[in-house]
């Protein structure tokens, strides 16, 4: 913290809430702010972009197969070996990757928050059994199970959501439990208990809404992880099915054609890396902003 900022804290000690404080800190973090803008632009771009493309994502332009990026042909990112326009495919892949990132994170969010809040609120033996289970699950190589699931039960997009969500809730559950443990000793929970509100109603109305801040930070860090897992699966050929695509699948196609058509690797790789980069910076910035230790 600079001297100036430290002095400002001394001069104006009137009560700033934790959130206002965090928000201010986040806005001063240039990397995080840039991350937000780029993610927003990326989302708009992948949603709107395909409307302006001359080609559909599965249209095969045989005259221009494996053509390099060129303005003359109109394929500004080039085409793949089947002559499909890489620009529109990269954007479609982005739609899928971002969609999976958000939906699968939502799945892990629901499981993790419910599990962690119940364990933390009830405490005691319930808590120790539930957390012991989390410990055991932690030690399992989940990636292998997801791969097996995808191989055996077909590549269905719903399964991808559930499978990826199901492996990412463990951290969420731990964090939520920790927060719940401190929340449940607060006066408003005590008041609700004194009025005879049922435990699950307390969790729903009083605990979960107060968890949202911490959870928001963690969600921002989970989305890139999920996108990563999905592209890992797609890279192994186990993710979304052709002719639909995702960034991971495109990177895989590009890796195969590496020597003859490097653009097939480079464009999707840049999009994927840039998105993950921004999410990571944003999540980091949010965590730092909420961190009372203030590095």
């Amino acid at each position, binding site marked *: 913290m600079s001297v100036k900022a430290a002095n400002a804290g001394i001069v104006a000690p009137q009560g700033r809430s934790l959130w206002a404080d965090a928000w201010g800190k986040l806005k001063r973090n240039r990397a995080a702010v840039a991350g937000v803008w780029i993610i927003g632009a990326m989302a708009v771009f992948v949603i709107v972009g395909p409307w302006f493309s001359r080609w559909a994502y599965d249209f095969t332009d045989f005259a221009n197969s494996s053509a390099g990026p060129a303005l003359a042909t109109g394929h500004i990112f080039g085409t793949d070996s089947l002559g499909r326009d890489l620009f529109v495919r990269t954007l479609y892949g982005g739609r899928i990757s971002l969609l999976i990132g958000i939906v699968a994170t939502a799945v892990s969010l629901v499981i993790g928050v419910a599990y962690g809040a119940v364990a933390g609120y009830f405490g005691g033996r319930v808590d120790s059994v539930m957390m012991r289970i989390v410990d*055991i699950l932690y*030690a*399992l*190589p989940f*990636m*292998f*199970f997801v*791969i*097996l*699931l995808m*191989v*055996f*039960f077909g590549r269905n997009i719903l399964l991808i959501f559930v499978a990826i969500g199901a492996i990412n809730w463990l951290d969420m559950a731990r964090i939520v439990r920790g927060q719940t443990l401190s929340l449940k000793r607060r006066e408003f929970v005590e008041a609700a208990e004194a009025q005879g509100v049922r435990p699950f109603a307390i969790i729903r109305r009083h605990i979960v809404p107060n968890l949202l801040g911490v959870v928001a930070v963690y969600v921002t860090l989970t989305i*890139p992880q999920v996108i*990563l897992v999905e*592209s*890992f699966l797609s*890279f*192994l050929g186990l993710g979304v099915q052709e002719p639909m695509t995702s960034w*991971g699948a495109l*990177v*895989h196609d*590009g*890796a195969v054609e*590496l*020597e003859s058509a*490097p653009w097939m*690797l*480079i464009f999707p*790789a840049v999009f*994927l*890396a840039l998105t*993950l*980069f921004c999410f*990571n*910076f944003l999540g*980091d910035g949010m965590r730092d902003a909420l961190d009372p230790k203030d*590095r």
Partner: protein
Amino acid sequence: MLRYSLGRLLGAIPTLLLLIAFSFFMIRAAPGGPFSSERQLLPEIEANLNAAYHLDEPLYQQFGRYLWGLAHFDFGPSFQYRDYTVTELIMTGFPVSLRLGGGAILVALLFGIGAGCFAALKQNSVADHAVMAVSMTGISIPNFVMAPLLILIFAIYLGWLPAGGLGDFRSMILPIIALALPQIAYLARLTRGSMIEVLRSNFIRTAKAQGLPTWQIVLRHALKPALLPVVSYLGPATAAVITGSVVIEQIFSVPGIGRFFVTGALNRDYTLVMGVVVFYGVLIIAFNFLVDIAYAWLDPKVKYR
């Protein structure tokens, strides 16, 4: 200490059983069998095959048989690679995978901790920000993206290193780098964070006040406490390196264990897939156990329960 270790060891047993049961029943629940993908067999032949591999027994009996075999370090015969047992297959691939994964972890530790310490000592300087930006890039570029990019640059454009295969030492360089980079990045960030915290503590200030040179403060006093989070990250790091190696081995056509997993899953080679999952699972659990012990030994605050 001994009791603590024994307790931890006992705690690993349910995890191990869960791992075995989970993968066994999931594989068996999958549609299709090891012989259903080939050309139509006569029912008698299929029945004979099933009997030979004990696939006609009730599931719980097969599970018991499998556990019994595991207890004798016998992973059973492979369905796909006839004449080979799974143990033999794993043992041919493991030395290669070990060189790759072990190399990646060593490289990651060396460079990750080094970069982290460096950044912590120059906190908030340009060098620090540069190291952190590079490590963020390392985290954000998945290893299966990094690997083909490395091939493109160093093998195809520059032609410095072979693009894959199992040759001399040079052929391992690119796969090890691809596998290690994300871990280097994580370790650098982790080390930086904890090192900064340790450098602020009182005993470091005392050491500075006594006029010790910086390198001595770092190496003799700060490093050990600062490495605690790094030690506890080693468990997840191993798991990540192992899963990553499945893809990396495929990209660089390195003949390790990874390919057995993918081809085995596609061919419904039950025993081979099980073997790989159990083998790697045991490896990860064992490593987590060692990490726990090392942590307890390093950190005086951990009570030996």
